[in-house]
């Protein structure tokens, strides 16, 4: 059992809780840097996907996990980022500029979609964002002159001033850098007054407003930042797949993102990474499980979606704090051994109580 004795105010908002935490994160960082040298190509490719989902998840976690605004439209930002980068690069814009433009355009779209959020909450907001995302995908399909419509676009490899990311490890390096930057950005916002204001809005809009939080500005900032990150993730995704078409950005992707932050653990930074790993690993697990299932079940086309639904339900019922909650419990069990009791780590079920969920 560890006891924390704080001796300075900075300890309440620094990046790592203590030296031990910093040490473990450094070790994790080392492992991530070493990954391309030791992992087989297939696993590295999965790691790239996880990294891309972490970037998108960081965006959605800020908006839904911290600010309490549920979005079913994040596939739209993902698509805007992907198509922006693909179209610009087709016209000879260098990657870094196209990447920045993808983020900026997604943020702008997020800002516009965020406007209804000022008046709507909960389910109504989710439906409004869903509708907005349909509009965005429809625009992409119809605007054939620019996006090539339903036939999709080929995406070249990332090229930064003569250096070409022509292998998986190189792509991995870029994704890793962006993912770390995205996590840092969200972590910074969460420990800054802006993040506090977002959590205040999640818990009580009236009280937040009466303490001086401008609801409109903070919500729009949350939407724009969230869309920006998801757009950047989309741009990376386009480069990962090297071919994009509008069918890859359906509502299922939005749901996948929501499932990701929910199962990871709503309102926690760790939840972003755990959720991303889970969402990427699940289809593989389902594929493996298929070999052992009776043919009648294994050949159902909706098997994966059904498994998603089952897992999500199981989490809502049994572990609303997500994978991160489970991790905390395991840690607590060992640090308290043998004194762990069932109720000794009861957390507030934030999502279940707040109106917006």
């Amino acid at each position, binding site marked *: 059992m560890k006891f924390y004795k704080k001796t300075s*105010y*900075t300890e*309440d*908002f620094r990046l790592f809780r203590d030296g031990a935490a910093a040490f473990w994160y450094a070790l994790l960082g080392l492992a991530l840097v070493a990954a391309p040298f030791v992992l087989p190509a297939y696993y590295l490719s999965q790691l790239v996907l996880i990294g891309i989902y972490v970037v998108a998840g960081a965006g959605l976690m800020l908006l839904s996990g911290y600010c309490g605004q549920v979005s079913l439209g994040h596939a739209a930002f993902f698509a805007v980022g992907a198509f922006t980068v693909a179209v610009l690069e087709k016209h000879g814009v260098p990657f870094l500029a196209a990447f920045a433009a993808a983020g900026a355009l997604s943020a702008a779209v997020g800002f516009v979609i965020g406007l209804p959020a000022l008046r709507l909450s909960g389910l109504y907001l989710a439906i409004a964002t869903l509708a907005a995302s349909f509009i965005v995908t429809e625009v992409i399909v119809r605007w054939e002159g620019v996006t090539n419509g339903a036939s999709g676009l080929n995406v070249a490899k990332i090229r930064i001033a003569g250096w070409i990311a022509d292998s998986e490890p190189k792509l991995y390096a870029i994704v890793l850098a962006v993912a770390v930057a995205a996590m840092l*950005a969200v972590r*910074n*916002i969460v*420990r*800054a*007054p*802006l*993040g*506090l*204001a977002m*959590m*205040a809005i*999640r*818990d*009580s809009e*009236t*009280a*937040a*407003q*009466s*303490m*001086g*939080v*401008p*609801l409109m500005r903070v919500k729009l*900032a949350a939407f724009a*930042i969230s869309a920006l990150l998801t757009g950047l993730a989309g741009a990376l995704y386009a480069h990962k797949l090297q071919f994009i078409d509008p069918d890859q950005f359906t509502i299922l992707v939005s749901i996948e993102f929501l499932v990701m932050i929910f199962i990871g653990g709503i*309102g926690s930074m760790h939840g972003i990474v755990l959720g991303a790993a889970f969402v990427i690993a699940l289809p593989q697990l389902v594929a493996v499980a298929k070999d052992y299932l009776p043919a009648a079940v294994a050949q159902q086309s909706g098997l994966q979606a059904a498994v998603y639904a089952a897992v999500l339900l199981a989490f809502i019922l049994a572990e609303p704090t997500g994978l991160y909650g489970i991790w905390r419990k395991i840690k607590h069990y060992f640090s308290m051994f043998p004194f762990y009791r069932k109720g000794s780590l009861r*957390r*507030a079920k*934030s999502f279940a*109580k*707040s109106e917006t969920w």
Partner: protein
Amino acid sequence: MAVLSVSDVGISFGGLRAVDGISFGVEPREIFAIIGPNGAGKTTLFNVISRIYEPSTGSIVFDGRDITRIPPHDVVRAGIARTFQNINLFDNATVLDNLMLGRYRHHRSGVLRQTLFTPFVRREKLADRRKVEEVIDFLELGKYRDVLVAGLPYGVRKIVELGRALAAEPRLILLDEPSSGLNVEETRDMVFWIQDMRDDLDMTVIMIEHDMSLVSAVSDRVLAMSSGRMLALGTPGEVQRDPGVAAAYLGG
């Protein structure tokens, strides 16, 4: 010179005239109580002053500035903080974070600086923290600092909410039933705190209160309301002797 003057304020919900023609002025460093039976329009009046509701008539001037039409989040910037009748805290945050949010109006850093968490943001946060620690000392909340608000007993939550309002360093504080749900000892503490807010922190206090012993103990003047209208305005003794007030409470 009154620090807050409310003139002829009224508000209707559909056909219901919830607050009707209320006028009063509050002097600097005065403790001003509003009493009245349930449904008298006291909380509605608070909501009008803190701009949650749009008044249908009248004007509110605070510190020489007309605040009748400013956006709600600017009220605390103008120097008015409030508490709520049914405690309105951020349940999933710690006591410390709740109080830190009280400092929100003092921030100057924009989104970019906060995303980078620059030294400027760090300094602002430390300055906030020192101020919040003063509030924690003042209200003796030290042992609850890192506790989630959702798990605290009612009386403590009430005090945390008061602390959040104090952290904003307002010049005028609106307390909606500060003693409701508190036990005898906590109510006595509340009396001292309200007096200290005026004497040590130089604040003006307006409170809605049902506990007449608390009202008589601390308030300089009392406004009695019933069915949205003013019944009486004067010292606690005067208001208590007013025949209209007795009638409103006892029926008559």
